[in-house]
């Protein structure tokens, strides 16, 4: 743990802009800046992480760290920043962690097996109820940041995997491979060393995109029925 003192912070700054100011001050003093992940800075790419004062993406709700603003803190506060911690997210440097385990889970089944050839049927050929489409969209909103894992005492990835399984399970296009998909993705999730869900619900509260616990329930139902069919 290192203590840094940072000055000239405006309440309108985002948390990452505060980190920029800190790093600029460190570079000007000839010290090494603090490494952290970030990219879009508008809450959609899922690259930024950080465990701030004991919460993934900090004290505000419904935001990623890049959308967290300094108006959430008081002048003179000491802020504790840690990387996202989980066995399946090894630390690379400072606040940067390796979340490639999420990618591998998606390689295991996070797709519909259609060719990208352009010979598919017309997009309106299968009507999909607005409710199903909206629900699939809510699940698909997940940005894959890993806050759910970092917030979970078991470092479980079930909210993430539940969201991915749900998006496809809710749509007719995704039903065809639903059985294999849920089995393969859950198997990979276990292989990566993520923990199990014990229904605490911290993930849902800390999720910057408000992904609902219902997705975990849906995944469990899908998983159960997939195995019953065996």
């Amino acid at each position, binding site marked *: 743990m290192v203590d840094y003192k940072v000055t000239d912070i405006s309440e309108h700054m*985002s948390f990452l802009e505060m980190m920029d*100011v800190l790093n600029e001050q460190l570079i000007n003093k000839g010290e090494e800046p603090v490494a952290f992940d970030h*990219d879009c800075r508008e809450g*959609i790419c899922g690259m930024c992480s950080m465990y701030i004062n004991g919460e993934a993406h900090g004290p505000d709700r419904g935001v990623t760290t890049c959308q967290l603003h300094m108006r959430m803190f008081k002048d003179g506060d000491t802020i504790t920043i840690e990387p996202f911690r989980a066995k399946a997210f090894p630390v690379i440097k400072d606040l940067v962690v390796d979340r490639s385990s999420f990618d591998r889970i998606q390689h295991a089944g*996070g797709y519909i097996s259609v*060719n*990208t050839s352009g010979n598919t049927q017309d997009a309106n050929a299968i009507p999909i109820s607005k409710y199903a489409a909206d629900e*699939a*969209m809510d699940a698909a909103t997940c940005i894959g940041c890993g806050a759910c894992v970092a917030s979970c005492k078991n470092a479980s990835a079930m909210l993430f995997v539940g969201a991915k399984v749900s998006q496809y399970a809710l749509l007719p296009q995704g039903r065809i491979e639903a059985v294999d998909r849920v089995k393969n993705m859950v198997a990979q999730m276990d292989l990566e060393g993520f923990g199990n869900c014990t229904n605490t619900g911290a993930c849902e509260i800390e999720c910057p995109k408000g992904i609902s616990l219902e997705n975990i329930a849906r995944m469990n139902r899908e998983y159960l029925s997939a195995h019953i069919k065996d």
Partner: protein
Amino acid sequence: MSVLDSKVPKGPLKTKWTDYKDHINLVNPANKRNIDIIVVGTGLAGGSAAATLAELGYNVKTFCYQDSPRRAHSIAAQGGINAAKNYQGDGDSVYRLFYDTVKGGDYRSREANVYRLAEVSANIIDQCVAQGVPFARDYGGLLDNRSFGGVLVSRTFYAKGQTGQQLLLGAYSAMNRQIARGKIVPYNRHEMLDVVKVDGKARGIIARNLVTGELERHSAHAVVIASGGYGNLYFLSTNAMGSNATAAWKIHKKGAFFANPCYTQIHPTCIPRSGDYQSKLTLMSESLRNDGRIWVPKNIEDVKAIREGRKKPTDLSEDERDYYLERRYPAFGNLVPRDVASRAAKERCDAGYGVNATGEAVYLDFASAIERYGKEQAKIHNIQNPSAAKIYELGKAIIEAKYGNLFQMYEKIVDENPYETPMMIYPAVHYTMGGIWVDYNLMTTIPGCYAIGEANFSDHGANRLGASALMQGLADGYFVLPYTIGDYLSNEIRTGKIPTDTPEFDEAEKSVQDKIDFFISNNGKHSVDYYHKKLGKIMWDKCGMSRNEKGLKEAASEIRELREDFYKNVSVPGSANELNSELEKAGRVADFLELGELFAKDALLREESCGGHFREESVELEGEQKGEAKRNDAEFAYVAAWEYKGDPSEAVLHKEQLEFNEIELKQRSYK
């Protein structure tokens, strides 16, 4: 005779692409297994191309600087994707989409490419729905549409305000399927730092592993650059922090011509800047202009009162507001194209009517939309004589369903509730229409090296219409490149694996290594950001929304001086053999410092106003169009493609004359 050959096939515009596909050379499936392709960048263009090429049977390697292909900045596109489906029955067609795009681009794009884009657009929607992209639907279960600027039909498909995210996740899922089969090998947290040419052809790249710092050699039979645009040249833009021009600039230095660098899109609806510490700007989707009305106060006294906090915008009556877009452009109103909307906002703010402390903001107001929807809902729900509060409640729910995530994003950043008080917006750099010159096959002037998506120049002319970037990225990646690349690769079936232990790879790796060593050992006194911000200020002040000869000349020489100072005084802490963000940034800013000068040179040459490029010397002086941009087709209906000659100031110009056979060149009128 120009050295540029656009390779546009002969024949009528409407059947060119079909005829061309029928006669193009193909590679047989067994031979595809022996051919390697490198794709740099994994956004909509790169991701869709990688997935499709792998599906066809080629061996694909993808490279991205992010930790996952799914995080490329296409993900941040909000509003939607255009397609000529005519699901709304409002008169849309392939021809209209083509026409709107050419007109919107101010007649500076290549007709044949744009027609092909419009032609394949409908397929994109079919493809994405099949992949499970959850587009918005109406209650009957069919796909919904909205309108975007510069057009008179509803052809934009969307997934809330996160269309780019959903389309990218679709392309990423298609990649996943190929990664699982071993046909794509993803190299994430890797950055391409040079292209390697053997016998004049692109044969591989040098990439840096951003975690270990190790330099790697990768060979291939073709290299595809899908690394996006160069908006971060301005430091402040809506691009991601890591978005950069390095891949594009490296191929430029090795022989790929760079076309129309001065064509930059300044997007009208972004959240205004609040201070010097600002690291980036946030876009508010153009879709908001479907329902939002843009205005500033009519009277300068009200402007002062608002700035000093004595009045609120909601205190002003309708008579006291100037809905300047509706006033100036009655036919298109708030849905004029982006370049027109941005200049109109600048005009009002320059005249002193800006509504925030910096004087650089106008209002985007949803009050009348909330009222309109509220009344409609009251009727639908059969509520007699609804109160104003009830109308507001019903209308707000509709606005929330349409734009909820954007309103929330605004509130988090600005700390004001846009349902209750109008949003404040101002233009910001968003997209670059210019880019690597490509022919009809999307091949650059380096054989075997292709550029797709925002990285190339071909489809949007001097101004891109809203919801067309996603369309172009996916069209290039899913439907164009996979065909056209076969024509080149059919000659490579006997080449065999390309070795990386050759003098060409040695030399390329050494030059990359030397540059890294230089930065690490250069004990300067200023950070990389110090230079990037200075460059951004020059660009914004002198190569921004309006440009003139004097400013552009100054910009070129100031950028040159800044570049010299950068090499003397930049400081990069840490070492080369680790994750080092400052080192990454140093390389990118070094390239921006060259590209910026070429930009100014290009803008100086183009003594006309077209699209996003507005020259103060070239405006209409009289008539209905007085004060509007004035194009000069007689002298400037060409693509300016620049050849690198060792220094940006010595770049050599090659012209590709644009021919318009289907469309008559006209003054672009939105009045």
